[in-house]
């Protein structure tokens, strides 16, 4: 009896296999899964859970990505083989053909508002930081918008690169510095040289003579006009004074 119960007790010392806790947490949706994907931007580490994509980084290694994720997002993370359908979705997303769902839990409501607003900016267009601040109802919080965008956990996917300084300087970019930001914007079809030439001359808006509407220089509606039909304005008062009204799509000023 004694020896048998001693022997049987060895079964209590069995250890769960490696990674077991992480697999359980991922299945319950408490941990995020992640994999590395080859994209147009190179290798990107992407994390997701049942609510959507939660993080993306061009980390140098899996270890670096895990450390960053743990610090920034705080949930456990499980590496998995990249699912083929997600790879296709990511490709579509980066080409602007699709909107993935995102999980922004854990960010402040302000940061979430900034990122949601940023998602509305179309591919090929840019907006100033001040525009985001005004649109989300905090017109004075321009610097806070910059901070929220700098801490965007899902760059490339949530296009924080489409928010730029109004003086034409391509602002900072968490996803690889100003050069990376320029590259991505060019890739998306933004005419950077024109944009910067305008900004350096102090022009903030472009008006179209035929419609008497003024827009941000990258606005979709302005792209159809010929170059000789543009007029440029330094500020809202100048545009309104010339009889132009703000575009209702890119909203360079509150329409009145």
């Amino acid at each position: 009896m004694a020896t048998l119960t001693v022997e049987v007790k060895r079964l209590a010392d069995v250890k769960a296999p490696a990674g077991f806790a992480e697999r359980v947490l991922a299945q319950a949706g408490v941990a995020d899964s992640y994999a590395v994907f080859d994209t147009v931007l190179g290798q990107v580490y992407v994390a997701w859970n049942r609510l959507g994509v939660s993080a993306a980084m061009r980390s140098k290694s899996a270890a670096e990505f895990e450390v960053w994720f743990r610090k920034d997002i705080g949930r456990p993370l499980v590496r998995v083989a990249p699912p083929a359908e997600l790879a296709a979705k990511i490709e579509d997303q980066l080409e602007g053909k699709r909107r993935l769902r995102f999980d922004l839990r854990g960010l402040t409501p302000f940061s979430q508002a900034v990122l949601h607003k940023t998602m509305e900016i179309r591919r090929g267009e840019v907006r100033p930081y001040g525009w985001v601040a005004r649109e989300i109802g905090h017109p004075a919080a321009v610097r806070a918008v910059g901070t929220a965008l700098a801490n965007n956990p899902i760059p490339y996917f949530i296009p924080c690169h489409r928010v730029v300084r109004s003086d034409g300087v391509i602002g900072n970019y968490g996803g690889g510095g100003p050069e990376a930001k320029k590259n991505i914007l060019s890739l998306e079809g933004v005419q950077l040289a024109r944009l910067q030439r305008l900004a350096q001359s102090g022009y903030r808006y472009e008006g179209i003579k035929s419609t008497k509407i003024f827009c941000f220089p990258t606005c979709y509606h302005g792209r159809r006009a010929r170059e000789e039909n543009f007029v440029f304005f330094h500020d809202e008062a100048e545009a309104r004074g010339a009889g132009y009204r703000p575009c209702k799509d890119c909203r360079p000023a509150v329409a009145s």
Partner: protein
Amino acid sequence: MEGTERVFERMVRDNQDRVYAVSFALTGNRHDAEEVAQDTFIRAYKALQTYPPERVRELKQRAWLHQIAVNVVRNRVRGVRPRLVELNGSEPSRASGPEEDVIRKLEVDALAARVACLPPRYREAVVLRHIHELSYAEAAEALGQPVGTVKANVHRGLKMLRGDEDNGHIDG
């Protein structure tokens, strides 16, 4: 919501070995053990989400998880018979450790397979009482049986394990 997730993460990390070991002892092989252990935690998580905070705080996690694991195994058995592993080193061991580790693992596997050959009611009782050292009261609660029944089942289960079951009928 966030709170439940934290509680659950801790619960999984603190109890993963224990729950896996129970599942292993109850099913007799590592493959089923992982499935049962996973199901146990997923069920626990679903339940936690519906519990009010004070119930979560007062929960006796250890006993509660044992109870869920027992139920998961019972439900599986109702569906499909558990895979019986032959005693003589069937399952190819994928362990890559030193030789003693492999041998020990095989021994433990054989032991688990022996326990798994017990009829369910004896197996459950022996696993909870003698492998996981629950008190008779705790084991009775986890199994949903009277203490006396559990005591009797433990006794018979051990007797069978020792090989006395060759005597055929066990009376009493």
